[in-house]
């Protein structure tokens, strides 16, 4: 029971991270119908920016926990802003010139951008695994015991897990409000339904698409910093697998749907953690990919998505 509860907590934490990345995929797919292949690498860039910001602040073992948490929030905000610039630039350089071109074109530039980002970070930061300074990592690893087990195994919620889930819930609430109740969100939904018609009614389509990329990148940065805090180690290659899993999450939840992306993320996180906990970690990636294939074959519209109507 304790083991199960612990896996559940871990799964929800991991799922929150996947969900945050998945939102970037689902929003971009919803609005311009392309798979932003470089999104996983934007997540990786955000993670590295977070690491460097932590190093700049230079926390020590004597720093009180409150200051560490405040620093974490500061790092989150700055990393979101800087990663958003990356998201904007990628869209401007690689996707906007190809708008209106055939469908494969932006996918190819996205793959190209993914290669560029991976290798740029590898050159700039080196290929080794980077560890978060133990001063920050260990302090955030402490937590509360949720369920005390008879055989000495307790189910624990750590501070970092609380931070991750808390930040995710806050951001989800904020962005749901943004999409449903602001003029920006209205413009976005209009572009999603019909870009030409939206342009005719005075929506600046290019600007709306840029903002979509900016939001997606900012959320990916949050996921990146969370990933860094949770695992304590990153390298330039984390973007690929995390990206594919987040995309799986977006598809599972129904691509184009924000709550779907979050739900899909949580499910993928849970499946991965339970698979690793009860079956073995060797094939946990296969589990995620198989789910992706099965969902697409049997329910292409996902759990919360609407089936697409084919027009002739």
């Amino acid at each position, binding site marked *: 029971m304790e083991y199960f509860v612990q896996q559940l907590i871990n799964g929800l934490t991991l799922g929150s991270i996947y969900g945050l990345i998945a939102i970037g995929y689902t929003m971009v797919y919803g609005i311009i119908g*392309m*798979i932003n292949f470089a999104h996983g690498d934007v997540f990786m*860039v955000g993670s*590295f*920016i977070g*690491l*460097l*910001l932590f*190093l*700049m602040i230079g926390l020590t073992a004597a720093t009180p926990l409150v200051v560490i948490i405040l620093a974490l929030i500061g790092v989150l905000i700055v990393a979101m802003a*800087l990663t958003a*610039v*990356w998201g904007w*630039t990628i869209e401007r*350089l*690689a996707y906007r*010139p*190809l708008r209106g071109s*055939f*469908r*494969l*074109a932006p*996918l*190819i*530039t996205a*793959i*190209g*951008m*993914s*290669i*560029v980002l*991976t*290798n*740029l*970070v590898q*050159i*700039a*930061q*080196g290929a080794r695994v*980077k*560890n*978060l*300074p*133990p*001063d920050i990592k260990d302090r955030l690893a402490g937590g509360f015991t949720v369920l005390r087990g008879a055989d000495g195994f307790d189910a624990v919620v750590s501070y970092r897990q609380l931070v991750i889930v808390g930040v995710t819930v806050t951001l989800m609430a904020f962005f749901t409000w943004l999409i449903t109740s602001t003029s920006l969100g209205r413009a976005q939904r209009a572009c999603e339904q019909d870009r030409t018609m939206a342009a005719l009614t005075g929506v600046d389509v290019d600007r709306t698409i840029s903002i979509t990329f900016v939001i997606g990148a900012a959320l990916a940065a949050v996921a990146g910093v969370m990933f860094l805090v949770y695992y304590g180690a990153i390298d330039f290659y984390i973007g690929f697998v995390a990206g*594919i899993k987040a995309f*799986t999450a977006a*598809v599972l939840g129904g691509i184009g749907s924000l709550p779907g992306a979050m739900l899909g993320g949580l499910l993928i996180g849970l499946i991965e953690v339970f698979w690793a906990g009860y079956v073995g970690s*060797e*094939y946990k*990636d*296969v589990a995620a*990919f*198989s789910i*992706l*294939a099965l969902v*697409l*074959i049997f329910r*292409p519209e996902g759990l919360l998505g609407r089936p697409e109507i084919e027009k*002739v």
Partner: protein
Amino acid sequence: MAKAATATMQAGDSEPTSLGAALADAATAAVIALLLAMPILAYRSVEQAVSLGMEARWGAIAIGVAAVFAGRLAINLLGPRLSGPVGELFAALKSAIVRVFHAIGGWRTVLGMLLMLAMAASGAGKLSTPRWFDLLLIVPLAIGVWRRSPAWLFLGLALFFPFAPGASRYWIENFGILVLIYVMLGWGLNVVVGLAGLLDLGYVAFYAVGAYSYALLAQTFGLSFWICLPLAGILAALWGVLLGFPVLRLRGDYLAIVTLAFGEIIRVVLINWQSLTGGPNGISGIPRPTLFGLEFKADGGFADYFGLEHTSLHRIIFLYYIILVLALVTNWVTVRLRRLPVGRAWEAMREDEIACRSLGINITNTKLTAFSIGAMFGGFAGAFFATKQGFISPESFTFWESAIILAIVVLGGMGSQVGVAVAALVMIGGTELFRELEIYRMLVFGVAMVAVMVWRPRGVVSGRVPTIALKETRRIGGDLVKEGHG
């Protein structure tokens, strides 16, 4: 030519910009570059005794930002028409550059000349051939000029390459064979992506199936390369059918993602199924191919039989011709298939799936044939790769291989056989030239992928010759080719 004309027309249509606006725009670009570099490029995290430390490199960043400023300014000045005397000066300069390029004769000639230079430039270790042999280089050039077709030029060059002046062992192995493997993979994937219009991001899975099939069959049953080659192709095709059957009813992007997932699943299985595949350590000691039973070894092999002096170069040249023949067979089969009903069905399906279905074509079967034929060529290439390397491991079959092959097909112009060959030559050969700059190689590759796509979204050879025509065959311009069904 038409491209240049449209470019001038667009430049003429756009608003003339002032020098001040151009400067302001360049400054904005520089600020964005600075924000991008901050902190991920400006600081490097370095391992220290206890935890990570940092290292600043503002000098490099300053140069980079200045370069962005200058580059953007140059684009602004050379791109849209600039007002005033400065603008006229730049316009004159621009047209002069365009004129020089056209005087040389366009990109094909430039590429051909570069190839010649590259072949002549490299040095030692070549096969001792008589001096007059070098003159044979003129033959493919003459045919190419005479037939007015780059395809013949490339074919001639490819046939002659191992004996070309300056073609050393290193060049044949790392340039010639490698480029041809990718040409073959590109042509194989072209059947799926270019002709049938199915986006396959997991093509490397079939390459891996071919390679492992050959390695395992040869090691377990002691079968020779020439028996295993068709078997590897058949097995890969079977896998194509097996994977294709459930996924082929998916639409464009979804199909891409599922094929990607299958590619990754196969790789993860190869890593984890230690007892069969050797896991991450791979399989080594894969037997080499033989020429009608003659091995390429010091005693009693190929060299002895023909009374030649033994050199390891013979084996390399033999491998080169095997892959050349395999690639040409791929090309020949594809070209022939295009004229058969099934090939026409592929192209019809690519242009419009719904119209195709309503004409009574069985979409599932048509997709499956394309998928499995593409897979079969991937399997052949995989078997060749295994025998060439003598060692395979899951590391050779990552997603990036699929991405590179797909990039070759798309950048070459989907459906164009010559375009794919040119793209493979430029992308693989080009990055192979940068071998010394190992870590920058893939970066350059990625930048090139984005740049070429933005510059020519339809690929290098964007025009298309219809397979069947009413009276005369005419090329269709890239901008008229419209298929949006991925």
